Structure formats: C-alpha cells, structure tokens
C-alpha cells in the first residue's frame, strides 16, 4: 500500500515537473516572438509618433485643408506660367521664321 502511494506521488511530481517545463518553454517561445516583432517595427517610421503631434496642433481641419489646396494650386500655376513662357518663345520663333514665306520660285 505504501509502495503504491509512493509511486503515485512520484508520478504526480513528474507531471508537475513536466507542466513547469512546458510553461517555461511556452514563455521562451512567446517572449521570443514578442521581441522579434518589436525589433521589426522599430526599424520603420512610427505612425504613432507622427500622429501624436498632429492631434495636438491648433490649426488642423478645414482651414489647413484650404491652405494646402492653395499651396498645391500655387505650385501648379507657377508650373503653367513657366510653360506659357516656353510656348511664348516658340511663338516668337515662329514669328521670326515667317520670313521663310518668301514666294521664291526658281
């Protein structure tokens, strides 16, 4: 009977030890994954860090949106005016080439 009790308690201890080992293994595996994912994101620009200052800005919203549209339009208009200058040069060249219309017949 005593021998049987001893065997049973040995089995319980072995089970406990196995459970502890499993838990330790699980901790090591999950911990490793956590560290790995942390390392991966740390190399990229953090969205959270940039979004925080924006939310604390004072002039966000519709006024900033209008201002941004004005900036964009300004850039487009400057480009178009430069293009108009180039087209004007072409037109001036065409004016000076008009002399080639000389009606010469050999």
């Amino acid at each position, binding site marked *: 009977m005593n021998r049987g009790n001893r065997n049973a308690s040995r089995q319980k201890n072995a089970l406990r030890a196995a459970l502890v080992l499993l838990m330790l293994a699980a901790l090591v595996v999950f911990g490793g994954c956590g560290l790995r994912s942390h390392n991966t994101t740390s190399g990229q620009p953090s969205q959270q860090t940039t979004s925080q*200052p*924006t939310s*604390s*800005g*004072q*002039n*966000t919203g*519709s*006024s*900033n949106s*209008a*201002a*941004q*549209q*004005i*900036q964009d*339009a*300004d850039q*487009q*208009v*400057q*480009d*178009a*005016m430069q*293009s*108009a200058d180039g*087209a*004007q040069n*072409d*037109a*001036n*060249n*065409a*004016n*000076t*080439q*008009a*002399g*080639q*219309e*000389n*009606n*010469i*017949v*050999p």
Partner: protein
Amino acid sequence: MRFKSLLQSAPRHLIALGLAASIALGGAGAATALAAPAHPALPTCTRTDVKCVIAFGDQRIDERTAALTKLNDKANAQVAAGHITSSQASAIQADVTSNQSGLTALKSKLDAETDATAARQDVKTIYTQFRIFAVMLPRDYHEIVLDIMTNVQAKLVGLEPKLQQAIASAPADEQAQLNALYSDFTAKLGAASTQITNANGLVSYFTPSNFDNNLATYRTNWLNFRTAELAGRADLRQAASDLHQMAKILKPSATPAATATPTA
C-alpha cells in the same frame, strides 16, 4: 558704380523695350513675309529644267512638313504636361493634319510634272495656298500660349472661394496684407480675362486668304492680337505672383510647432 546703377534701373527699361520689340518683331514677321530677303540657297533653274524646279519645291514642302510635325509635338507635350486640354490641342492637330495632307498631295502633283511652267505654278502654290510660315505656324503657336493662359485664368478664378475662406481664417494681423493681395489678384484676373477674350476674338482672321488679300488689316489685327496677348500674360503673371505671396502667408500649420522649420 555707374554700371551698377544702370543695372539696377535696367529691368523696367528692358521689360518695356522687350515688349515693344517683341510686338514689333511679331507684327513685322508676318507682315514682311512677302518682302523677305532672298533664300540663301536659291537655285537658278534654266527655263525648261523641270527637275530642278521639282527639287526646289520638294525641299520647300519638306521644310514645311517638318515644321508642322514640330508644332504637333509641342501641342502634344503641352497636353501631356496638363497645361492644355486634348480638346484645345485637337484644333491645332487638325490644322497640322489638313496642311500636311495638302502638302503631300501637292508634292505628288509637283513630282509628276513634266513641264517646268506647271512645276513653277505648283511651287507658287506652296506659298499662296498654305502660308505655313507666314500665317499658320505663328497663329497656332500663339494659340497654344492663349490656351495655357485661358486655363491658368480659369484655375485662378476657381481658387477664389478657397482663398476667401483661408483669408477669413487667417490671424487678424495678416488680414490687411492678404486682403490687399486678394484685391489685386481679382482685379488682374478680370483684366487678363478681357485681354484673352480680345486676343481669341482675332484668331479667326489669320488665314492665308486674308494675308494675301487684306494685308494691311491683317497687320493691324496681328499687332492688336499680340498686344492683347502680352498684356493678358502680364496680368496673369501678376495674379500668379499675388497668389504665390498669399500662399506663403497662408502656409498650413499641420506640422508640430516643436519640429517646424522655416522655409526659404
């Protein structure tokens, strides 16, 4: 020192001189076409040398065809850059196509001639029927300029509500400057619109027929056209400058104050 002061005062004088010279050259370019100096490589074909006449005519046709292709490329480039619409370019492309077709047909006729007198008549037709250099190219190149101006003007007018909104939301100490710029902006846009309309109204007059039959009126209209175009461009340039200054003042403040850096 004298040179320095001359340089400082030069821009205004140069601009005025440039405008005057540009108008004068533009008008003179079309108007003096018939009285232009002789072609540097003018061949002297004998009276019956039909091949010589054909070769001369072919060269003149090739020059014109190449110039038309260049114009077509320029129009396409402006479409690709988004400065003129496909619809605006199509008028120029149609001009190019019809003139190139006409010149190709004329070349076939010329190349088949066996009589020197008939060949000479074909060469004459290159000038009188097409007027590529005297009429078509100057007119269409200026049309591209006008199309760009029209689109810029419309874009700037479309921006007025946004500007008003942004000015109303701007800090009080910036309002006076912004309102003054906006006032000039709208005035210059109105003036540009008038000049663009005036110039556009004259375009249809510039035809080979009017060049040959009403040269005096053609010259006057051409001069008026160029004057309106240049004035309209000056107005648009000022409006664009007003916008640029307003955009600088109204710069969006989305970036955090701590990391904001001043721009040049």
